[in-house]
């Protein structure tokens, strides 16, 4: 039970100034295929993006578009033996982690790149106390002489994640905590190794709205303090708008558009992004018209068309779209999209080959 006085913290909160630095993560032509009995599922098919220090990059897309598989691939945790990284490079701090031997990946995970999963209920082991689990995780990163030192660190990190009375909380078991509190503990374990990149895979979908607001603010504070880059995977456009500086829009295993948040929301270039933005109802305006809706469904990842993957649902589809996958077009502002409609327009310049 918190006391009545500290229940309200709205006044003295300010939006932290972003301090965006050099490129931390550089992903080039990443392809992860799943070899299943139905055929080859192209879950991630040619991904190119960069993340800078202190930046939040959103990965937006519908279920089955490959966003979670992207996260797992970045950690090299894609389910084996079905999943194979077919091509690509992942430069983390200048080092291609795909060249590391498997048994050395544990020095990368947690300390350079770390992850918060969607469901806090299953991310924690129910039979150990929070403290035990944190000390075990911290033991990987710090060469402390004694358990006590690690425990103090655990308490410290929990406090940073906004856990009230962390000295007592470390003795709790996961089932004694609420969902929001558990997700904070999971977050604390994820940042314990001071990673450069933190991947958040829908961390707030299991939480209530008011708890989600608390958690998102917390993530922003942690980022401002530590300068960690966050990759935020979500399907919730509201969360993207709130949290991210830039975003990738994924569709059927490919990034169809990327750019900074304002342009993506105000001035999207790819028909899929346009449709996606138009189909989200607003709570700020009165509704008069029918909501825009994209008819049909995304193609199955094991049976992809040769051309543009959005062609079967696209309003502006041409023969060219069906025949050849469009190249990426980029503009001066670092915005890019894969769509034939941009071909020949003055501000857009072709940056990749068509049909790959």
């Amino acid at each position: 039970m918190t006391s009545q006085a500290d229940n309200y913290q709205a006044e003295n909160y300010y939006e932290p100034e972003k301090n965006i630095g050099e490129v931390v993560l550089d992903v080039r032509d990443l392809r992860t295929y799943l070899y299943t009995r139905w055929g080859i599922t192209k879950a991630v098919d040619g991904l190119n993006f960069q993340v800078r220090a202190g930046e939040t990059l959103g990965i937006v897309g519908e279920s089955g578009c490959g966003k979670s598989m992207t996260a797992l691939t970045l950690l090299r945790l894609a389910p084996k033996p079905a999943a194979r990284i077919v091509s690509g490079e992942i430069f983390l701090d200048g080092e291609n982690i795909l060249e590391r031997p498997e048994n050395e990946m544990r020095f990368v995970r947690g300390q350079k790149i770390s992850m918060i999963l969607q469901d806090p209920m299953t991310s924690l082991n129910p039979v150990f106390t929070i403290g035990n689990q944190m000390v075990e995780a911290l033991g990987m990163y710090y060469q402390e002489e004694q358990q006590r030192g690690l425990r103090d660190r655990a308490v410290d990190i929990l406090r940073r994640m906004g856990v009230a009375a962390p000295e007592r909380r470390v003795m709790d078991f996961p089932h004694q905590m609420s969902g929001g509190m558990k997700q904070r503990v999971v977050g604390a374990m994820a940042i314990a190794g001071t990673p450069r990149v933190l991947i958040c895979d829908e961390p707030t979908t299991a939480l209530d709205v008011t708890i989600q607001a608390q958690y998102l603010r917390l993530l922003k504070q942690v980022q401002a303090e530590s300068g960690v880059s966050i990759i935020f995977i979500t399907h919730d456009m509201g969360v993207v708008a709130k949290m991210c500086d830039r975003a990738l829009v994924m569709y059927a295993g490919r990034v169809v558009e990327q750019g900074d948040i304002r342009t993506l929301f105000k001035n999207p270039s790819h028909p899929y992004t346009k449709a996606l933005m138009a189909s989200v109802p607003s709570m700020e305006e009165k509704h008069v018209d029918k909501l825009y809706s994209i008819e049909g469904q995304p193609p199955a990842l094991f049976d992809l068309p040769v051309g543009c993957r959005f062609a079967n649902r696209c309003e502006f589809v041409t023969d060219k779209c069906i025949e050849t996958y469009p190249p990426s077009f980029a503009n001066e502002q670092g915005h890019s999209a894969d769509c034939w409609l941009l071909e020949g327009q003055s501000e857009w310049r072709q940056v990749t080959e068509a049909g790959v």
Partner: protein
Amino acid sequence: MATEGTVLQLPQRLPWYSVARLRHLTNLIFKEYPVVWLTILFLVLIFPALTADFTAPHDPLKQQLSKRLTPPVWDQTGDKPGTWSNILGTDKQGRDILSRIMHGSRISLMVSLSALAIGGTIGTTLGLVSGYFGRWVDHLIMRVVDTFLALPLILMALVIVAVFGPSFYTAIGVISVLLWSRYTRQIRAEVLSIKALDFVARARVAGCSNLRIIVKHVFPNVVNTLIVLATLQVGTVILLEATLSFLGAGIPRPNPAWGVMVADGRDHIASAWWIAVMPGLAIMFVVLSMNMMGDWLRDKLDPKLRQV
């Protein structure tokens, strides 16, 4: 979703004798295609059970004292060499063991199928009722189940047989009584999780009666579990039947039940091992292949069940 089930990718560019290849092959045979087990089952259990009257070389009950204690055909060393007439040898009354095993398979099959049908029906019904209605009905049924599970099985069976006298029907009855509680437990657990799903709520909203919900909505979703359970239990039942017969509480002599045959061979185990070992092998093969089939079925049917 895409990672469901075992993925059997043929390892590329490996010599045939490599461990990976061999493992792949054994996996293919034993995990993916249980042909081996099906074949054994067919040869040892189903085929003889159906055709023993025509295919068995001898009458299983006919005694030929002149031929008594003939060893199997490959054992030519003793003072009484094996003959092709009695391939697996004869027992102390000179009855042909192969023929007795073949006729015994019919008894095993009949006993296990009837016991499974009776015990399964009772157990499933009670499990459905217990899981669906919950509250005191559940309490009552589950306490009875607990009591049955706590009873020493064999002892109970001996007591029942002592009261009713050994016969084919007593054996079936005893085994059914011992079996139903396992079904109840498993099915109840299954029903509890199905009951919480929205389609049951939807059926209630649509005004379906409890009976209709149980029969049309719940039961079809436990059938998979039931099949797996029954397959796994066939082995147990055959073993149980053999045990009872061995103890003299099952199929009365001189019927050629496998358990009875093992019991008969007990006295001669040092001199005429084949009398006990041959039916013992039959039991082993059937139980083993039934269990493997059950495991295979569970692997095949369960993922679909989880998608519910």
